[in-house]
């Protein structure tokens, strides 16, 4: 069983690597260079799929938080942790690619435009989620605290979106793309999704395993029970 799992994992990561390889080829060779933005426009192919996957990861996190709160099953908590970590990673990619774009398009790394602010607040919300989790020692309290915060944080997302819409906007709302660009953009959803899914599953499995190890350590049958040095008697 272990061997099958390992082979499957290797196969999955090989396919993901191949998908990235093909994606790079499409970006570098197939998609034309955009006139006004130049080469920097090409990071858009990573930017948009990452943004969508970020949102999906946080959506799964929300479902997992509700799942934990209603069933108190540990695996929901493991899933919530994995999705939040991958979501934060993807959101960082969105922020960095967005800032590189902004430097070229608007001449500065950061402006308080609605979408930039939205991404930053989203990133902050879930970085805090991870920080809050890591600062609680007890497993059950950590899971409970994480679940409640995760639910409240996700409910906050549409409100952040509505509030940033009140700010003045310079972000492009629709972009004219050549057919080859559209194909490249559509294709890039595949490697980014494969990578996100793979990372979530890997982290989830690692969480499950570390929980099992901790559980075994707590009830280790090899430890002598009832023997005290001071009294020197067996009970």
């Amino acid at each position: 069983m272990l061997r099958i799992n390992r082979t499957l994992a290797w196969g999955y990561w090989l396919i993901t690597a191949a998908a990235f390889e093909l994606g790079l080829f499409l970006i570098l060779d197939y998609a034309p260079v955009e006139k006004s933005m130049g080469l920097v426009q090409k990071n858009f192919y990573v930017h948009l799929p990452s943004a969508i996957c970020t949102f999906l990861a946080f959506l799964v996190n929300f479902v997992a938080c509700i799942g934990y709160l209603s069933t108190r099953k540990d695996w929901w908590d493991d899933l919530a942790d994995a999705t939040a970590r991958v979501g934060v990673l993807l959101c960082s990619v969105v922020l960095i690619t967005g800032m590189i774009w902004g430097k070229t398009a608007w001449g500065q790394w950061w402006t308080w435009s609605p979408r930039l602010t939205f991404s930053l607040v989203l990133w902050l919300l879930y970085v805090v989620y991870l920080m809050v989790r890591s600062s609680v020692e007890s497993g059950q309290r950590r899971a409970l605290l994480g679940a409640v915060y995760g639910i409240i944080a996700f409910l906050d997302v549409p409100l952040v979106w509505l509030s940033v819409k009140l700010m003045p906007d310079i972000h492009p709302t629709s972009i004219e793309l050549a057919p080859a660009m559209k194909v490249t953009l559509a294709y890039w959803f595949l490697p980014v999704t494969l990578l996100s899914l793979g990372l979530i599953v890997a982290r989830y499995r690692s969480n499950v395993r570390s929980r099992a190890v901790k559980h075994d350590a707590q009830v280790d049958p090899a430890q002598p029970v009832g023997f005290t040095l001071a009294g020197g008697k067996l009970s």
Partner: protein
Amino acid sequence: MTPAIRQFITLIGKDLRIEARSRQTLGLVVVLGLLIIVVLGLGLGVQNNVPGVSATAVLWVAYLFSGVLCFEKTMAVERSDGVLSGLLMAPMDRGVIYLAKLTSNLILVFAVAMVVTPAGVLFFGFDLSAAPLTFATIMGLSIIGFTSVGTLFSAIVSSTRLQGGLLAMMVFPITLPLVIASTQMMVQTFRDRNPVGVSSLGILFAFDLIFLTASWLVFEFVLEP
């Protein structure tokens, strides 16, 4: 009077009586709020004062920090002498405990705002005469939303025996939509002289409604002696 309302009034009475006799929260929090305003006033200087924007930002910092301290203190009272264990054993709905705690927190935060707001308005030369009611509505709704989240999180944090700082870290990012929306509305009202529409105020209403309901629903899961 239904039992729920009677329990609600008893709980608020208890909180306010404790505060009136010990006077350990309100004085401290008011002075903290004033200090924040003075520090920011000195830091920003007169030259950086933009009407409607600077004062709102400064007031938000003062509300957030003094509010979080307020929630921490009122929840710490429940922890001493096993008050919470007694409350949890009492035959009452835990939603009532949340609503009572929220109301007493709101009374305290509004009391702080009554002192801190005039100070901020005065020090930053914020001319409210254009739309005083709009200002009061925006800030009032924001404080209700912020307190509803703060009350829920203070209950969770207080049961984890953690040091301070965690509550602020949880409350601040969740409150950001309120900060963004209220600041934009203040700019629109006091700098651009455009009246704020119902749709903008709707964001604040939505925030209050969503988080009051969500907090009320999940409160019973987080309350443990």
